[in-house]
Every structure is written in C-alpha cells, then in structure tokens.
C-alpha cells in the first residue's frame, strides 16, 4: 500500500496538532526563517534564498508549473523608486481544487513562513494574501495567524533583529474564478473590476499598482521552508526529472475517500485513485478522470497508468494543472459533464476577449443540444471547431482552459456524443 510522502502535511497529519504559532514552533516551525534572518547561523542574503529555490527545481503549484526560482529572478534585485511586491494567490477557484484551502485552514503558519521567506527573497516589504471571499472563515483563520506573528514580532519591523521589515495584508476576493488569474487578481486587489491584463508588461515589470510584482500560489510558497531547512538538493531529490518535490493532490468525485493527499511528484496516477482515493465507490467501474481541474482535458482509464507530474500528464494529452483529480464512474454522463463544464466557463469568462466571451456562449448552446438529444455529427464537429477557435486566441489562459477540455470531451468520448444524436 502506497504511503503519503509528508513534507507539507507533516503537522496536519499529526494527531492533535493545534495549528497555532506555538504548535507550529514546537513542531520545528520558523526554523527556516531563523536560519535566513537570525544571527545565530550567519543568515542568508535574498539572492541566496532565491538561488536555493531555483536550485530546488520548485515549480509553481497554481496550475502552470512555472519554475518558481526563475520567476523570482525576473524581479528587480534592488528596488529603488518602486517597491517590490509578493502576492500570494489563495483564490483557489479551479473546480476540483481544495488543497490551498486545506493548508491555510489546518496549518496557516507553514504557508506564512514561506510567504515571509519569499518576501525577503524579493525585497518586498508589504505582501498581500488574496483569499477567495466566499471563505470568510479562512480569511479569519489567516488573519489570526498573522496577528500571532505580529505579537511575537515575527512580522512588523526589524524581524528577528535582521533589519528586515515586513507587513502582510489579507485581502478577500469578490467571487470570480477569473480573479485567480494573476493579472486579474492584481486588478481586483487594486479595487478594479477583476479582468486579466494584456501581457507584456508582465507583473514582474509592472504589476500591483504598476510596481514589480510576483504572484505565487499558496502551496508553492509553503514548500520554501523545507527547501531552506533541508537544502535544495533534498527537495530536488524528490519527484521526477524536472518535477521535483512533493505535491498536494485534491481527489474528488466518485471515489471512496475523497480528500487532499501528499505524494511525490510523479507518483503513479492510477495508484492515486486506487491507493489514496480508495478506488471507485460502490464497486462501479472507472469511466474517466479529469487530472488537473476543470480546465484540463478528460482522460480514459486506459491512459492513466502514468506518473502524475506536469510533464507526464502533458505528454498524455492533458494537464496536471492545480493537482485536482476528479474521478468519474461508469454511470456518469459525459454530456452532462461537458454541460456543467461549459456552463461554468461561460459564466466565469470575464468577457473582454471576443472568442472567449462569445465562444463559451455558443458552446454552451451547442452542448445543450446534445443534452436535449438533438445532437448530430455536424454539431459535434462544430463543438470542436468553436472550441478550437478559442484556443490560443485570447488575452489570458482562460480561453485555453475553456476550449481544451471542450474539445477533449468529443475527442476522447465520441461515442458518448453519438448517444445524444437526434433520432
């Protein structure tokens, strides 16, 4: 029986863990911060922290898997006229994803330590944590943890006598999936309508309030303390080539034991469903999985005996995305799944790009025809054409996120569409 590889969830998996500052410290927390900022071990420069993260091979866990250390090097090393910002993306609205929520709720200090280290590495003196506004309890939770840090002088001015000042602010989102996209998040944070920006300029050039900005996912930052404590090699040793470390996987759908599990990068995808998810519930057969949240293309059971990491899932024609594994049993209607998916994407499109705004609307209507058993070969091709015309032609990746899965439903499960042809 496969075991979890505990790196981020170590505390959470400890029975009776209180998740407050005292408990986190008792479990060895804020050692990395001491190592970097404290005098006792000589400290580390911001560049050294960035270098360590780069050497660890840590890739962003928000969805795109962009190398975190590399992203940090895009920021001005010595901000003069404009401040640098690190913003944590805790919007987590990708359907099927609930691992950031799990981390923030059950061990907020792990992520906060990573956030403080990140701010130090980027010479940022005011960091923002953007958390989806629907989860007020989560916002209270993180705010309370931050209060604890201020009380213990781990936030504020001159942290650990290092001369490094840092303030952290938690900002509630306002209920839009698109505000998880980093530039829409920045607009939202600035008090504007959350709409993705045209890039360039990239956030590292002109982000929050026009200042150099890095946006990182909660889980990405939560990995930083381990890298500092144990060295980048220890992290790089885990996982597969180019996909280092462990990962949090949100398993949902028709499994016996849905939940968040921590495994090494590259853990077998099938094993994730069977060994951790406990297999398909009710003794039913597996029909399909969506490996990385609603925006990743659907897969058939035959093709899931692969390592679960960014590159392998990509090679198999889908995406690891945010690590949201959705499992569907044989009773699932793929058409209904397509219907739910496109209704979601149509509802959430910010509406600025023509292909995304109109294409998702058109697709929703087309799929509706299949739901009403009024499909046809021609309409199937049209779904493929319309979805394909959104792909790659929009300002932000939402267009791909909506188009790719809609093409995949018909490509991977054509027989399911044919069942809904007009007779």
């Amino acid at each position, binding site marked *: 029986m496969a075991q979890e590889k505990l790196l981020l969830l170590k505390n959470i998996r400890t029975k009776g863990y209180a998740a407050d500052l005292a408990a986190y410290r008792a479990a060895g927390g804020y050692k990395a911060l001491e190592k970097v900022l404290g005098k006792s071990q000589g400290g580390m420069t911001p560049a050294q922290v960035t270098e360590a993260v780069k050497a660890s091979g840590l890739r962003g866990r928000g969805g795109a898997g962009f190398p975190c250390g590399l992203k940090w090097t895009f920021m001005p090393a010595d901000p003069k006229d404009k401040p640098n910002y690190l913003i944590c993306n805790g919007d987590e609205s990708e359907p099927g994803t609930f691992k950031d929520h799990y981390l923030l709720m059950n061990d907020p200090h792990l992520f906060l330590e990573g956030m403080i280290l990140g701010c130090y590495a980027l010479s940022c003196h005011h960091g923002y944590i953007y958390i989806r506004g629907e989860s007020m309890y989560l916002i209270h939770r993180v705010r309370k943890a931050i209060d604890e840090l201020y009380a213990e002088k781990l936030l504020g001015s001159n942290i650990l006598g290092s001369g490094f000042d840092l303030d952290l602010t938690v900002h509630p989102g306002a209920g839009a999936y698109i505000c998880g996209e980093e530039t829409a998040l920045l607009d939202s944070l600035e008090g504007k309508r959350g709409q993705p920006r045209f890039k360039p300029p990239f956030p590292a050039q002109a982000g929050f309030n026009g200042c150099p900005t890095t946006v990182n996912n909660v889980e990405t930052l939560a990995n930083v303390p381990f890298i500092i404590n144990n060295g980048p090699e220890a992290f790089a040793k885990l996982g597969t080539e180019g996909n280092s470390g462990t990962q949090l996987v949100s398993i949902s759908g028709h499994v016996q034991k849905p939940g968040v599990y921590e495994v090494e990068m590259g853990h077998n995808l099938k094993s994730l469903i069977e060994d951790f998810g406990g297999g398909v519930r009710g003794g039913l057969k597996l029909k399909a999985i969506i490996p990385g949240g609603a925006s990743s293309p659907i897969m058939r059971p035959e093709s899931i005996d692969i390592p679960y990491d960014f590159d392998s899932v990509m090679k198999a024609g889908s995406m690891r995305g945010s690590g949201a594994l959705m499992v569907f049993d044989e009773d699932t209607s793929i058409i209904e799944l397509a219907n739910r998916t496109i209704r979601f994407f149509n509802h959430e499109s910010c*509406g600025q790009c*023509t292909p995304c705004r109109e294409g998702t609307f058109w697709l929703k*209507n087309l799929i509706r025809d299949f739901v009403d058993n009024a499909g046809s070969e021609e309409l199937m091709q049209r779904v493929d054409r319309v979805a394909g015309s959104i792909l790659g032609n929009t300002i932000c990746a939402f267009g791909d996120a909506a188009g790719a899965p809609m093409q995949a439903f018909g490509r991977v499960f054509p027989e399911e569409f044919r069942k809904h042809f007009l007779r």
Partner: protein
Amino acid sequence: MPTFYLDDQPVDFKQGETLLQAADRAGIYIPRYCYHPGLKITAQCRMCLVEITDMGNGRGMPRLQASCATPAAENMRISITSEKALNAQKTVNEFQLVNHPLDCPICDQAGECDLQDISFLYGTGRSEMNYEKRVSGNRDVGTFLMLERNRCIQCSRCERFSRDLVGTHDFAVFNRSHEVSFDTYGDHRIVHRFQGNLADLCPVGAITQRDWRFRKRAWKLKKTPGVCTTCSTGCNITLDSHQNHIYRISPRENLQVNRWWLCDEGRINFRGLNYHPGSSGPGAGPGKKTPRLEEPQLKARGKARDGGWDGVLEALAPLLKEVAAAKGSVAALADTHATNEELFLLKTLLAEGFGSDKLFFPLQKGKAELRAPAGLEDTFLYSLINTDKSPNTAGAQALGLKGLDGPDALKGALGGKVKIMLVLGSPWEDDPIAGDISTLADLVIYLGVGGNAWSKTADVVLPGFTHAEKYGSFVNRNNLVQRIRPAISPPPQARDQVRTLCSLLGALDREANHADGRDVLAALGAAEGPFKGLNWEALGDGGMPLPGKG
C-alpha cells in the same frame, strides 16, 4: 528606420510602435475593433491577430499575436494572410456576430460600420449560430446620444474614452461573459461637451447621435473636408451632405489640431448651414429662426428697392465714387468669421479705394474654456474648446486689422461719424452698435449671410456665402493656415463675398477680378506679406503654418 516584413513586404517602424500602428502608416490595413489610435490599447477584441513566423531572432511564435499591441521588432516576419492568421480573423469575426442582432437595414451605422465591412470581407453569408441571442435593449444615455446595447460588440472604446480622455467615467462595464454590457451607471445621463466622439468611436451602431439617427443612409453622403468655425481652434471636420443638405459634421483627423475629436458645439453647427428658402439659415435652430438673406437690397432708409444685383451695384457705384472723390471718411467692420481672402479684399478696398485704414474687428479674448478634472493624465480634449468663438482672429491680426474690445472702443476709434461704413459679417451683432449705426455712418453697406440686426438697419444688403459654400482660408489660434471649400451650393441670388468685394473695387475702377477665394489666396501668396508663398492647393487638407510664424 528599422524594418519588419509583413507578408514579405518591408514595413518601416518607429521605435515603440506596434505592428498594427506601423502597418497603418504604411497603408496596410489590418482589421480591428478595439484598437483606436487615440485610446489606450487593450488588445481585447482579437480581430487583429497575426502570425509571427520570425520574431527577428529566427524563432517564430507558436501562438497568433494581437498586432495592435505587439511591438514591432527589427527583421520580424509576420503574416496577416497565412492560413492560420486568416482562419483566426474569420472565426473572431464570426464570434463577433454570435450575439449581434444584424439589424443593418434599420441601423444608422450601416455603410460606415466596421463590423459590417469586416463581415463582408470574411463572412460566409451563412450563420452557424442558430440559437437565441442576447437581448439587452436600448437606453437613452445623454443629451446627444442613444445607446442600443444589442449592437454593442464590447470593444470598450466608449469606456476608455470616458475614463482616460474625458475623465467623467460615464461608461462602465457591467456583468460578465456574453452578458457583458457597456452602459452608464443607473439612469446617469452623459452631459459633457464631447459626446459626439463616442458615436464616432463606437465601431458599430450601438452609440449613435440623436441628430443623425434615421436621417440619411451613410453611403449616400458626399464628404467635404472643412474646418470648424465654432471657435479659434479650427478643428478639422468633414461636412456630410446629400442633395445639397448637410446632415452631419464629423471630426477629420489632424494630429496637429484636433487629433480625432470634435466638440458637440462644432457638430451641431451643421443645423445652421442648411438653406431652405425663407425658413431657416445661419443661426437658425430650435427657438431661433433667422431667415437667410436671399436678395440684394438697396434701401432708401427703410424702404427696400428691388433691382437685383445689377440694379443694386449700379445704384451703389456713384455713391461710392462720390465719397471717394470727396475723400470722405470711410470705415469697415468685419467679424473674424470672414476668410483671409475677404479680409484682404476689404482692406484693399478701404486703402486703395478710399485711402482709409479704419478697419476694425471685435477682438475676442482666447483661452481654454474648460478645465480638465483633477487627476486626468491626458487633458488634450479640454484644450479644444476656446473662448474665442471665431475661426479667424489670427488671420485678421496677420492682415493688420485692428481688434477692438467693444462698441465703446469702436466709437473712439472711428473718431466721429463716417460717410460710409462697410460691414462684413456680423461684428458686435448682439451689442446695440448695430441699432445705433445711423449715428455713426451716413451709409451702411452690409455683406452677410443671415438676417440680423445689421441686415435690418443697413442701407445696402449684399447676401453672401456661408463657410460651407465657398473657398477660402482661416488661421487658427496656433497660426496654422487651413482651407475650406464648398460642400453645398448657396441660394441662387447670394454671391461669394469675394466676388462682391471685387465688384465694389471695380466700381472704383480698381482691377480686381477673382473667381473665388482660391484666386485671392494665390494673389496674397504671390505678394510680400504674412501669406507669402502660400496658395490654396499647397495648404492641403492638413493646413500649413503661417509663414514667418510658428
């Protein structure tokens, strides 16, 4: 200049220019909806997608790029006609039509609509979108505009204009996805003085000018370049007419003057330019009906005598000669709606015919009338409307006419009653001076277009042309000389002021035979003086700086 290649054709670009901007300058059209040279770039409509086969470093880009926002780079190779690019343009336009009502037959934009034009370029004529479309209804959004949201293609030009150039934030984005709507907040009505630009900017018929709606099909219009006469800025305009009726005045691009914009006062100016016998004329508008002068008149102090042009001029000639021979005092008043050519002839008449230099015009103090809202970055729009409400103050000054503050100053400058007073246009029309004139002059000769206080009191009335009916030039407040030309023909009995002034010169045996303003400008340009070297052709549609001045 650095160069990139568009479908193998070299295109020069300036540093910082985007692909579409450089292509525009090279005269290559890339279809677009959201891009407008006067607005911030958002790259959201995706109509301008191009394939970049080489970024200039030997590598291509896997995805199509929005050419309106992608900076040009040395040796870049792009294609707007590759299969991939064409296909994207086609489908983006198809998407644009998904929720569009296609009500062109009753839409005022038809004929000058970007969506219609581009659809004709790419469309198949057959729709594959057979579902119910979004319906969002019409709204009255301002004193000048109507908003028909069904037609909106969500390009956000209206929002950007309101936010970045006017600073009034009238338009905002509401809702998401296909329900996105550009609208004003609540029942807010737009009241600023640049509303018409929103109708111009809107690439479809979603925002239309009330004055223009349901009046004329756009493709019937004759387009005549002109210059706005509403203030001293001299914004470049197009007079849109059909069958001798002006239906609309729109801005004409001139980066040195008004860029792409025009104020609403300038737009409604067309109302007064249409001539309907006896019913309307300059100054005519709601609540103000002043008839157009149609016949020359020689009045024996109050009683009109009808003799036609020949009769009137014949009767006038001996009167002029008599005064000239007796070296009687003669003065002239002109307003600065008169062209340089008219002012020049008037000055010549006075100097050569009567040896007088008493040539005055009401001087209007010019300064920006509006103040931009605090915090607005680009305040250009607010510099447009000037307090000097005439187009040619600078021209009058260049020709050496004396500007006077008001009627009192005029009385002083005249230094007593004169024998003949020539009046060109309507100087101090609203001041009592026109009524008082009999105490200032024995004989008043009026050259004008509209019936007003001057035409009532003058002894001789000689009907002329409006600026929409004649050739000529004005000098704007930045000393740019700009030309006008006829858009419509004048009432049959009216005569070009230039011709009339020639006749008066002729009556005093001075050789003056100019066919129209172009001729006069040629003479002006040939002689020493402020206009040396200029001629009407050379001015072009963009104007030229007054020689010797900035």
